[in-house]
């Protein structure tokens, strides 16, 4: 029966090929022609064949940055999001992944193979790569040197957009004075100059928080919402949460913003009550420091809610708007090697992206969704479909699709998670004290096992200034030193007390259950011990839709995104 069908199909194919040529032959001849993968891909092909470049002028420009959300972290978020929706995860499509255009982005800073968020934000929002730690200045500035800032200032996209008559908003879950949002409105020789208390003596460049208020006064920034209240309030004033400010110049920037006519919101209730139709700026400061992780969020708006409020407030401007959105804490959770919170903040970012897609039109809005840099995140194998992305790796089922439910074991006999970090607080190496007993054992064993005695060494010595007993002692010390070095024992002396202590960085992996590994507080295992896991220099992706989004393709330098936004909006 099967053979007959095949034969019939082949005859039909030959007949069609006479009429239409060999392309159709190949397609119809394929035994997998009706396979869902094949038909799905064909639909995708047809969609792309029909695509035309959108060369409309961009009335609105939106750039959305998930901090520390490179290609690897994004892969994990895709699976996590899919698994929360009840599928295996791999097949899931994040909202940004439905955008038609994509580029890989090179993220390094001019002086850093591994970038930081200040340098990368300046690249995206002001169009030039600069040094790590720099906000809104070019590479001629030395880090921390305020005297070089004025000559090194670069113009931000916020400024260009506001000069073009657009409303502008900066939304973040980090502090508003943190690196990524700051590059939209500030110039600083160091990202840490968030308020006046951290400025070096004699620095004449205003701190970052005060630059935000100046930007609101000038109209460069209309809406700013995020965390970081402490940088706006004097150190003798307590904020709404009873936490003291950090400013030492006595200025209360929240009061100054109110005096400019700004609506100030600080919790879920005041956020809900803000009048979005009212003229004048909106300042939202929902936490003393960063806003909460999505996993822990209470009494403050979500990133998507802040996006919705911002677009609602700005969409009445006939000249359009510029919106910068940062999911600031994917980065922080990665730094903490706590994948669960990186994922839940990644999903909150995805919801914010969906909100922008829902509230804007491809016809007049350029949307770019990207990250500033990646982390030292890494992925183990070989895991079956549906393995929880934050949890232990299950095996592949050769007879089916879903994983086989068998925890995969490493050569140490222990299971392992899909995701680990190359460095971080989850390191299996721990700084363990070496007990005095072990040091004594080392001495006994070393000397007992040595073929040469101290006396022989002393007799062979030609140095008359060294006594026999000293030579024996020195020989013993050398043996112990060699042995301890083989065991990676290091001795350090406390500078204050003068006491010495010996330690080794050692460790092994203990048992781990799936329940423990998928706990929201679980810290992923790492190799190299570091209190804070690091960024990496790996590429990130930039997804885009709308006017001139087709210019975002290939492998690009990060600062190129600025040129595309500017061109799409202004033609320059």
């Amino acid at each position, binding site marked *: 029966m099967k053979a007959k069908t095949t034969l019939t199909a082949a005859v039909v194919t030959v007949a069609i090929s006479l009429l239409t040529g060999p392309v159709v032959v190949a397609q119809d001849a394929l035994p997998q022609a009706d396979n869902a993968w094949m038909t799905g891909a064909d639909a995708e092909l047809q969609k792309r064949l029909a695509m035309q470049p959108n060369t409309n002028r961009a009335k609105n420009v939106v750039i959305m940055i998930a901090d520390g959300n490179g290609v690897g972290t994004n892969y994990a978020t895709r699976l996590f999001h899919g698994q929360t929706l009840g599928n295996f995860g791999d097949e899931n499509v994040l909202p940004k992944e439905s955008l038609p255009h994509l580029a890989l982005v090179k993220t390094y800073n001019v002086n850093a193979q591994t970038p930081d968020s200040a340098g990368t934000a300046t690249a995206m929002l002001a169009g030039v790569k600069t040094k790590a730690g720099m906000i809104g200045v070019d590479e001629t500035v030395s880090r921390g040197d305020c005297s070089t800032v004025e000559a090194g200032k670069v113009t931000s996209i916020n400024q260009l957009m506001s000069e073009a008559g657009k409303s502008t908003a900066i939304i973040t879950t980090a502090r508003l004075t943190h690196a990524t949002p700051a590059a939209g409105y500030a110039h600083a020789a160091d990202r840490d100059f968030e308020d006046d208390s951290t400025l070096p003596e004699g620095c004449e460049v205003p701190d970052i928080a005060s630059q935000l208020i100046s930007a609101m006064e000038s109209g460069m920034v209309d809406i700013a919402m995020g965390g970081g209240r402490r940088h706006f309030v004097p150190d003798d004033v307590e904020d709404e949460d009873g936490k003291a400010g950090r400013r030492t110049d006595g200025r209360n920037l929240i009061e100054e913003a109110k005096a400019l006519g700004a609506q100030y919101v600080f919790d879920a209730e005041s956020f809900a009550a803000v009048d979005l139709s009212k003229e004048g700026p909106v300042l939202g400061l929902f936490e003393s420091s960063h806003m909460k992780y999505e996993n822990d969020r209470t009494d403050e708006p979500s990133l998507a809610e802040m996006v919705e409020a911002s677009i609602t407030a700005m969409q009445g401007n006939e000249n359009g708007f510029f919106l910068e959105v940062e999911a600031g804490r994917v980065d922080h959770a990665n730094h903490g090697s706590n994948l669960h919170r990186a994922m839940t903040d990644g999903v909150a970012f995805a919801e914010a992206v969906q909100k922008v897609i829902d509230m804007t039109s491809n016809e007049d809005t350029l949307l770019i969704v990207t990250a500033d840099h990646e982390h030292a995140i890494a992925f183990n194998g070989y895991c079956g479909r549906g393995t929880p992305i934050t949890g232990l790796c299950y095996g592949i089922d050769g007879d089916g699709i879903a994983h086989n439910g068998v925890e995969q074991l490493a050569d140490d006999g222990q299971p392992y998670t899909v995701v680990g970090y190359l460095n971080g607080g989850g*390191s299996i190496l721990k700084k*363990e004290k070496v007990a005095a007993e072990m040091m004594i054992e080392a001495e006994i*064993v070393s000397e007992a096992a040595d073929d040469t005695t101290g006396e022989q060494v002393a007799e062979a010595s030609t140095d008359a200034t060294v006594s026999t007993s000293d030579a024996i002692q020195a020989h013993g010390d050398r043996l112990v030193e060699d042995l301890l070095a083989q065991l990676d024992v290091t001795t350090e002396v406390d500078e204050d007390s003068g006491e010495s202590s010996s330690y080794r960085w050692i460790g092994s992996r203990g048992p781990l259950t799936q329940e423990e590994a998928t706990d929201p507080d679980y810290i992923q295992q790492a190799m190299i011990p570091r*209190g804070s896991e690091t960024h990496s220099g790996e590429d990130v992706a930039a997804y885009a839709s709308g006017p001139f989004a087709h210019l975002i393709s290939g492998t690009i330098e990060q600062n190129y995104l600025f040129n595309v936004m500017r061109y799409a909006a202004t033609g320059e």
Partner: protein
Amino acid sequence: MSRVMTKASRRQFLIRSGAVAVGLFAGGANAAGSARIKLRDLYNKDLSFSDFALAADGQRVAVTGYMAPPLKAQSQFFVLTKRPMATCPFCNDGDEWPDDLLAVYARRIVDVQPFNAGIIASGTLELGDYKDPDTGFFSRVRLVNATFKRD
């Protein structure tokens, strides 16, 4: 067994010796007994005390976490945090303080643990504001008369 140790067997012997020493060092305290809870079990999302914490006030509990690098040496006091902290989070004003933490007052001078080693601290839960007269450390919740061991 030969009396002469090869280089390899010397290493193994030393590693075993080290393992024993580390084992003694880690197992010296008695933290067994009470059910293990996590720091988050003491707090609601808004950082008010949970029903569990209110009910366990004055009771012995065992809490898992990490020992933050101590404020000062040779102290009976340390701070238990949810996540490993490589540097003392309370020593500089500029550093971030974790929101949810637990002050621990141990029975004996604390043997400082590696920052990334999980521990279980066991002691009597004490709710209420308290300012440590020695360190000035302000706490809303503490474990007192506590012991700890490696997790």
